[in-house]
Protein backbone atom coordinates (compact mmCIF):
# COMPACT_ATOMS: atom_id res chain seq x y z
CA UNK A 1 0.00 0.00 0.00
CA UNK A 2 1.30 3.48 -0.80
CA UNK A 3 2.50 5.70 2.00
CA UNK A 4 2.45 9.46 1.92
CA UNK A 5 5.26 11.08 3.86
CA UNK A 6 4.81 14.54 5.32
CA UNK A 7 7.78 16.34 6.85
CA UNK A 8 7.38 19.28 9.21
CA UNK A 9 10.15 21.47 10.63
CA UNK A 10 10.13 24.23 13.23
CA UNK A 11 10.40 27.60 11.50
CA UNK A 12 14.03 28.43 10.73
CA UNK A 13 13.96 31.72 12.64
CA UNK A 14 12.69 30.11 15.85
CA UNK A 15 14.85 28.68 18.56
CA UNK A 16 14.71 24.87 18.53
CA UNK A 17 15.67 23.88 22.11
CA UNK A 18 15.55 20.14 21.24
CA UNK A 19 17.99 20.59 18.40
CA UNK A 20 20.17 22.80 20.57
CA UNK A 21 20.32 20.08 23.25
CA UNK A 22 21.39 17.48 20.66
CA UNK A 23 23.99 19.88 19.23
CA UNK A 24 25.35 20.29 22.77
CA UNK A 25 25.60 16.50 23.16
CA UNK A 26 27.49 16.24 19.85
CA UNK A 27 30.00 18.83 21.06
CA UNK A 28 30.51 16.85 24.27
CA UNK A 29 31.14 13.71 22.18
CA UNK A 30 33.87 15.55 20.32
CA UNK A 31 31.90 15.77 17.05
CA UNK A 32 32.73 19.42 16.67
CA UNK A 33 32.27 19.42 12.88
CA UNK A 34 28.47 19.53 13.42
CA UNK A 35 27.67 23.08 14.30
CA UNK A 36 23.90 22.93 14.60
CA UNK A 37 21.02 20.45 14.74
CA UNK A 38 17.33 21.05 14.10
CA UNK A 39 14.67 18.46 14.87
CA UNK A 40 11.45 18.10 12.92
CA UNK A 41 8.75 15.51 12.41
CA UNK A 42 8.04 12.88 9.78
CA UNK A 43 4.47 11.61 9.38
CA UNK A 44 3.74 8.43 7.41
CA UNK A 45 0.14 8.24 6.19
CA UNK A 46 -0.89 4.88 4.81
CA UNK A 47 -3.54 5.08 2.12
CA UNK A 48 -6.15 2.48 1.34
CA UNK A 49 -6.30 2.70 -2.45
CA UNK A 50 -4.48 4.67 -5.12
CA UNK A 51 -2.93 8.05 -4.41
CA UNK A 52 -4.73 10.36 -6.80
CA UNK A 53 -4.99 14.14 -6.97
CA UNK A 54 -7.90 14.25 -4.54
CA UNK A 55 -5.97 12.23 -1.93
CA UNK A 56 -2.94 14.48 -2.38
CA UNK A 57 -5.13 17.57 -2.03
CA UNK A 58 -6.49 16.07 1.18
CA UNK A 59 -2.98 15.45 2.48
CA UNK A 60 -1.91 19.01 1.69
CA UNK A 61 -4.92 20.26 3.64
CA UNK A 62 -4.29 17.92 6.59
CA UNK A 63 -0.61 18.88 6.60
CA UNK A 64 -1.51 22.56 6.99
CA UNK A 65 -4.45 22.25 9.37
CA UNK A 66 -3.53 19.41 11.71
CA UNK A 67 -0.04 18.02 11.18
CA UNK A 68 1.62 21.45 11.37
CA UNK A 69 0.93 24.80 13.00
CA UNK A 70 1.86 27.53 10.53
CA UNK A 71 2.69 29.93 13.35
CA UNK A 72 5.62 27.85 14.56
CA UNK A 73 6.28 25.25 11.84
CA UNK A 74 6.62 24.78 8.08
CA UNK A 75 5.59 21.78 5.98
CA UNK A 76 8.83 21.14 4.09
CA UNK A 77 7.95 18.04 2.05
CA UNK A 78 5.02 15.89 0.95
CA UNK A 79 5.82 12.82 -1.15
CA UNK A 80 4.49 9.38 -1.96
CA UNK A 81 6.50 6.27 -1.21
CA UNK A 82 5.37 2.93 -2.64
CA UNK A 83 5.80 0.13 -0.17
CA UNK A 84 5.49 -3.51 -1.19
Amino acid at each position, binding site marked *: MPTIVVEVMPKAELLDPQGKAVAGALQRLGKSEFTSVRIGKRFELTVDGPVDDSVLADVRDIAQTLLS*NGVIEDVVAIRTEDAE
Partner: protein
Amino acid sequence: MRIGVVTFPGSLDDRDAARGIRIAGAEPVALWHGDHDLQGVDALVLPGGFSYGDYLRCGAIAAHSPIMTEVIAAANSGMPVLGICNGFQMLTEAHLLPGGLIRNEKGSFVCRDQRLRVQSVETQWTSAFEAGEEIVIPLKNGEGGYIADRDTIQRLEEEGRVVFRYLGYNPNGSMNDIAGVANERGNVVGLMPHPEHAVEPGFGPDTSAAMRSGVDGLRIFRSVLESVLA
Protein backbone atom coordinates in the same frame (compact mmCIF):
# COMPACT_ATOMS: atom_id res chain seq x y z
CA MET B 1 -23.64 32.51 37.03
CA ARG B 2 -22.43 29.20 35.59
CA ILE B 3 -18.90 28.70 34.25
CA GLY B 4 -18.06 25.55 32.30
CA VAL B 5 -14.73 23.77 32.70
CA VAL B 6 -13.92 21.40 29.86
CA THR B 7 -12.13 18.16 30.75
CA PHE B 8 -9.97 16.61 28.02
CA PRO B 9 -8.07 13.30 28.21
CA GLY B 10 -4.99 14.38 30.18
CA SER B 11 -6.42 17.52 31.78
CA LEU B 12 -4.92 18.05 35.26
CA ASP B 13 -6.24 21.30 36.62
CA ASP B 14 -9.92 21.04 35.72
CA ARG B 15 -10.96 20.44 39.32
CA ASP B 16 -8.70 23.22 40.61
CA ALA B 17 -10.31 25.58 38.08
CA ALA B 18 -13.77 24.47 39.24
CA ARG B 19 -12.73 25.11 42.84
CA GLY B 20 -11.48 28.61 41.93
CA ILE B 21 -14.77 29.34 40.22
CA ARG B 22 -16.74 28.19 43.26
CA ILE B 23 -14.61 30.24 45.69
CA ALA B 24 -15.09 33.28 43.44
CA GLY B 25 -18.85 32.89 43.83
CA ALA B 26 -19.94 31.21 40.59
CA GLU B 27 -21.18 27.72 39.85
CA PRO B 28 -18.69 25.48 38.03
CA VAL B 29 -20.12 23.11 35.41
CA ALA B 30 -18.10 20.07 34.33
CA LEU B 31 -18.05 19.73 30.53
CA TRP B 32 -16.66 16.81 28.52
CA HIS B 33 -14.45 17.15 25.42
CA GLY B 34 -16.37 14.46 23.54
CA ASP B 35 -19.76 16.18 23.82
CA HIS B 36 -21.29 18.81 21.58
CA ASP B 37 -22.97 20.52 24.55
CA LEU B 38 -22.00 23.59 26.60
CA GLN B 39 -24.99 23.03 28.94
CA GLY B 40 -26.02 26.67 28.73
CA VAL B 41 -23.00 28.06 30.62
CA ASP B 42 -22.22 31.80 30.71
CA ALA B 43 -18.44 31.47 30.41
CA LEU B 44 -15.82 28.80 29.74
CA VAL B 45 -12.46 27.73 31.12
CA LEU B 46 -10.07 25.45 29.20
CA PRO B 47 -7.88 24.10 32.00
CA GLY B 48 -4.21 23.17 32.25
CA GLY B 49 -2.69 19.75 31.91
CA PHE B 50 -1.28 17.58 29.16
CA SER B 51 -4.22 16.84 26.88
CA TYR B 52 -3.50 13.84 24.67
CA GLY B 53 -0.07 13.57 26.32
CA ASP B 54 1.06 16.69 24.43
CA TYR B 55 1.21 14.45 21.33
CA LEU B 56 1.67 16.20 17.96
CA ARG B 57 1.86 19.67 19.57
CA CYS B 58 0.61 20.87 22.97
CA GLY B 59 -3.14 21.43 22.69
CA ALA B 60 -3.28 20.54 18.99
CA ILE B 61 -5.41 17.40 19.18
CA ALA B 62 -7.65 18.88 21.89
CA ALA B 63 -8.24 21.91 19.64
CA HIS B 64 -9.90 19.53 17.17
CA SER B 65 -12.05 17.67 19.71
CA PRO B 66 -15.87 17.63 19.35
CA ILE B 67 -16.72 20.26 21.98
CA MET B 68 -14.35 22.77 20.37
CA THR B 69 -16.91 23.34 17.60
CA GLU B 70 -19.23 24.83 20.25
CA VAL B 71 -16.36 26.53 22.15
CA ILE B 72 -15.17 28.31 18.99
CA ALA B 73 -18.71 29.39 18.09
CA ALA B 74 -19.34 30.67 21.63
CA ALA B 75 -16.01 32.54 21.70
CA ASN B 76 -16.77 34.16 18.36
CA SER B 77 -20.17 35.25 19.60
CA GLY B 78 -18.60 36.98 22.63
CA MET B 79 -18.78 34.44 25.46
CA PRO B 80 -15.88 34.87 27.93
CA VAL B 81 -13.34 32.06 27.41
CA LEU B 82 -10.20 31.63 29.52
CA GLY B 83 -7.39 29.25 28.55
CA ILE B 84 -4.90 28.41 31.27
CA CYS B 85 -1.56 26.85 30.28
CA ASN B 86 -2.57 23.86 28.11
CA GLY B 87 -5.87 25.70 27.59
CA PHE B 88 -3.91 28.70 26.27
CA GLN B 89 -2.09 26.34 23.90
CA MET B 90 -5.47 25.00 22.71
CA LEU B 91 -6.76 28.54 22.06
CA THR B 92 -3.75 29.30 19.85
CA GLU B 93 -4.12 25.96 18.05
CA ALA B 94 -7.82 26.74 17.50
CA HIS B 95 -6.83 30.19 16.12
CA LEU B 96 -8.92 31.97 18.75
CA LEU B 97 -5.73 33.68 19.93
CA PRO B 98 -2.73 34.71 17.82
CA GLY B 99 0.78 33.31 18.16
CA GLY B 100 1.96 29.98 19.50
CA LEU B 101 3.74 28.35 22.44
CA ILE B 102 7.04 26.55 21.98
CA ARG B 103 9.40 24.64 24.24
CA ASN B 104 10.97 26.73 27.00
CA GLU B 105 14.13 28.50 25.89
CA LYS B 106 16.32 26.63 28.38
CA GLY B 107 14.71 23.28 27.57
CA SER B 108 13.56 22.44 31.08
CA PHE B 109 10.22 22.38 32.85
CA VAL B 110 9.78 25.42 35.11
CA CYS B 111 7.68 25.50 38.29
CA ARG B 112 7.73 28.65 40.40
CA ASP B 113 5.65 31.38 41.96
CA GLN B 114 5.76 33.99 39.20
CA ARG B 115 5.45 37.77 39.44
CA LEU B 116 3.30 39.23 36.68
CA ARG B 117 2.16 42.67 35.67
CA VAL B 118 -1.51 43.01 34.71
CA GLN B 119 -1.08 45.02 31.51
CA SER B 120 -4.69 45.23 30.45
CA VAL B 121 -7.84 45.53 32.57
CA GLU B 122 -9.97 45.91 29.45
CA THR B 123 -10.66 42.17 29.12
CA GLN B 124 -13.56 40.28 30.63
CA TRP B 125 -11.08 38.27 32.73
CA THR B 126 -9.07 41.17 34.18
CA SER B 127 -11.59 43.94 34.92
CA ALA B 128 -11.27 43.44 38.70
CA PHE B 129 -7.54 44.37 38.67
CA GLU B 130 -5.88 47.79 38.71
CA ALA B 131 -4.04 48.60 35.48
CA GLY B 132 -0.34 47.90 35.94
CA GLU B 133 -0.91 45.93 39.14
CA GLU B 134 1.70 43.35 40.20
CA ILE B 135 0.43 39.90 41.11
CA VAL B 136 2.02 36.55 41.99
CA ILE B 137 0.55 33.24 40.83
CA PRO B 138 2.15 29.83 40.21
CA LEU B 139 3.63 28.96 36.82
CA LYS B 140 4.42 25.41 35.70
CA ASN B 141 5.18 24.57 32.10
CA GLY B 142 7.64 22.99 29.73
CA GLU B 143 6.35 24.61 26.56
CA GLY B 144 5.40 28.15 27.50
CA GLY B 145 7.58 30.24 25.21
CA TYR B 146 5.16 32.67 23.55
CA ILE B 147 6.07 33.49 19.95
CA ALA B 148 4.43 35.28 17.05
CA ASP B 149 5.66 37.07 13.97
CA ARG B 150 6.88 40.64 14.33
CA ASP B 151 3.69 42.22 12.94
CA THR B 152 1.48 40.25 15.31
CA ILE B 153 3.60 41.18 18.35
CA GLN B 154 3.50 44.83 17.30
CA ARG B 155 -0.27 44.72 16.82
CA LEU B 156 -0.81 43.04 20.21
CA GLU B 157 1.30 45.71 21.91
CA GLU B 158 -0.36 48.60 20.09
CA GLU B 159 -3.87 47.33 20.70
CA GLY B 160 -3.24 46.66 24.41
CA ARG B 161 -3.84 42.95 23.97
CA VAL B 162 -0.83 41.85 26.00
CA VAL B 163 -2.79 41.07 29.17
CA PHE B 164 -0.07 39.72 31.46
CA ARG B 165 3.70 40.20 31.34
CA TYR B 166 6.40 38.33 33.29
CA LEU B 167 8.07 40.57 35.85
CA GLY B 168 11.61 40.16 37.16
CA TYR B 169 12.29 36.88 35.36
CA ASN B 170 11.16 35.54 32.01
CA PRO B 171 10.80 31.80 32.74
CA ASN B 172 10.45 30.44 29.22
CA GLY B 173 11.88 32.86 26.68
CA SER B 174 8.51 34.38 25.71
CA MET B 175 8.79 37.28 23.28
CA ASN B 176 8.33 40.68 24.97
CA ASP B 177 7.97 38.80 28.30
CA ILE B 178 4.40 37.96 27.28
CA ALA B 179 2.57 35.71 29.77
CA GLY B 180 -0.96 36.16 28.44
CA VAL B 181 -2.86 37.72 25.53
CA ALA B 182 -6.44 38.54 24.54
CA ASN B 183 -8.41 38.50 21.32
CA GLU B 184 -9.57 41.77 19.76
CA ARG B 185 -12.87 41.75 21.61
CA GLY B 186 -11.30 41.00 25.01
CA ASN B 187 -13.58 38.05 25.76
CA VAL B 188 -10.97 35.37 25.00
CA VAL B 189 -7.85 35.40 27.20
CA GLY B 190 -5.04 32.86 27.43
CA LEU B 191 -2.18 32.78 29.92
CA MET B 192 0.54 30.29 30.85
CA PRO B 193 0.57 30.85 34.66
CA HIS B 194 -2.15 29.27 36.81
CA PRO B 195 -4.58 31.62 38.59
CA GLU B 196 -6.59 28.63 39.87
CA HIS B 197 -3.66 27.69 42.14
CA ALA B 198 -3.84 31.03 43.98
CA VAL B 199 -7.45 31.27 45.16
CA GLU B 200 -7.50 30.16 48.79
CA PRO B 201 -5.36 31.18 51.80
CA GLY B 202 -3.15 28.29 52.86
CA PHE B 203 -2.72 26.93 49.33
CA GLY B 204 -1.37 29.86 47.28
CA PRO B 205 2.06 31.44 46.83
CA ASP B 206 3.90 32.93 49.82
CA THR B 207 3.32 36.63 50.47
CA SER B 208 5.03 39.09 52.80
CA ALA B 209 2.03 38.68 55.11
CA ALA B 210 2.10 34.89 55.51
CA MET B 211 3.20 31.64 53.94
CA ARG B 212 0.94 30.37 51.12
CA SER B 213 -1.53 33.20 51.62
CA GLY B 214 -1.49 34.51 48.02
CA VAL B 215 -4.91 34.63 46.37
CA ASP B 216 -4.16 36.93 43.41
CA GLY B 217 -5.64 34.39 40.98
CA LEU B 218 -9.10 34.74 42.45
CA ARG B 219 -9.74 38.11 40.84
CA ILE B 220 -9.46 36.58 37.35
CA PHE B 221 -12.58 34.55 38.14
CA ARG B 222 -14.19 37.49 39.98
CA SER B 223 -13.55 39.67 36.91
CA VAL B 224 -15.66 37.46 34.68
CA LEU B 225 -18.48 37.46 37.24
CA GLU B 226 -18.50 41.25 37.20
CA SER B 227 -18.27 41.41 33.38
CA VAL B 228 -21.09 38.97 32.78
CA LEU B 229 -23.38 40.32 35.50
CA ALA B 230 -22.67 43.97 34.63
